[in-house]
């Protein structure tokens, strides 16, 4: 759809710009506070450039998250050392049998944030898109460019890993926790 500049500008302001806060909080979790502004700005620049390709019948927020993910992968992720996820049996779901004990207190934002930052990035992204942005599995699959089954397994494993990390940090309050001991342990 070809739009005149004024019309394009009006549509962009109406459809894309309201999602700036959502993109910012996602960017902050992916690249940290220092680089979040740059990631957001580059995402919107790219979105503006390709706005003609956006299908207005679809979810603009999901479209923007997909662009943000692509920018993040091309500019930030490759510069960070990270263990690859084991994709073997990626779509297996493990039942929640070990969730009987209490591991969340009322004020745990520090522990939650720390645990989130230690999650493998694909688990973190899936959890944020589902729990914070409340996208459907179908939309998350489009953003992450993977099958729905992979979204399900990433959420399943990611939440379990997150809970273990939070529990470990909470238990180590007052000591010197070693987060690397808790990450990427076989779920």
């Amino acid at each position, binding site marked *: 759809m070809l739009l005149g500049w004024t019309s394009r500008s009006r549509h962009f302001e109406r459809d894309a710009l309201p999602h700036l806060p959502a993109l910012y*909080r996602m960017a902050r979790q992916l690249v940290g506070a220092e680089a979040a502004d740059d990631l957001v700005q580059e995402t919107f620049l790219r979105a503006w450039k390709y706005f003609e390709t956006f299908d207005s019948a679809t979810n603009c927020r999901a479209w923007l998250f997909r662009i943000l993910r692509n920018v993040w992968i091309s500019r930030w992720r490759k510069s960070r050392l990270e263990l690859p996820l084991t994709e073997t049996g990626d779509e297996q779901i493990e039942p929640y049998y070990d969730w009987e004990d209490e591991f969340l207190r009322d004020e745990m934002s520090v522990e939650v944030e720390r645990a989130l930052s230690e999650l493998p990035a694909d688990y973190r992204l899936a959890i944020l898109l589902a729990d914070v942005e409340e996208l459907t*599995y179908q939309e998350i699959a489009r953003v992450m460019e993977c099958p729905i089954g992979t979204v399900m397994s990433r959420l399943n494993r990611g939440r379990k890993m997150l809970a273990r990390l939070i529990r470990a940090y909470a238990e180590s309050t007052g000591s010197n926790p070693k987060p690397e001991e808790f990450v990427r342990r076989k779920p």
Partner: protein
Amino acid sequence: MMDCKNIREVLDLYVDGELSPEATAQAEAHLQECASCRRTVDRLNRLRQAVKATVGQYQPTSQLVARVRQSTISPWARPAIWVPAVAVAVLIIVLGLFSPQIRSVAASELEVAAFHLDDSRATVMEGKLLCRDCLLKEEYGYQAMCPTRGHHGSLQTKDGKIWQFLDGQTSEELIHNSKLLGRTVRIHGRCFRRASSIEVDSYEVL
């Protein structure tokens, strides 16, 4: 109806609202009867809420919002407007600063451009003949060369605007005959409004 094993395998789908209505109804029927599974669902929902509350506390600064708007929908982000405008401005500044000769040529070119851009048309104008240089001397202290070079006739219309006569055979008298100064004249010709100039086809002294 679901049992504990069934529901714990689809717990993510249940809390994320991805189960079919039938499966959701079965899951809820089981949860009503099973306190252990209810606790597990409660833990999972609390974890989701904790993530949302932790991540949601951050907001973009007003500077970032302004920067994004500036780089996307702001009129200044529109290349068709600002690129040529800036290019012309830079060109004029460079020409004006570095070369008087070029500046003169550029001025002439701009004048020609102004004539081309103008909506010129045949018109009849009436006004008083006055010396342009003397008027500028009176109003702005311009050092007029009239005593040595002679007056320079121009047309002042009733609205106070001063019009220049373009050089031509017909306009020569109007420009250089100082005896006509102060007389009211009617000009037939073409008017170039942006250049405040008149091309004279004929005139009559009233």
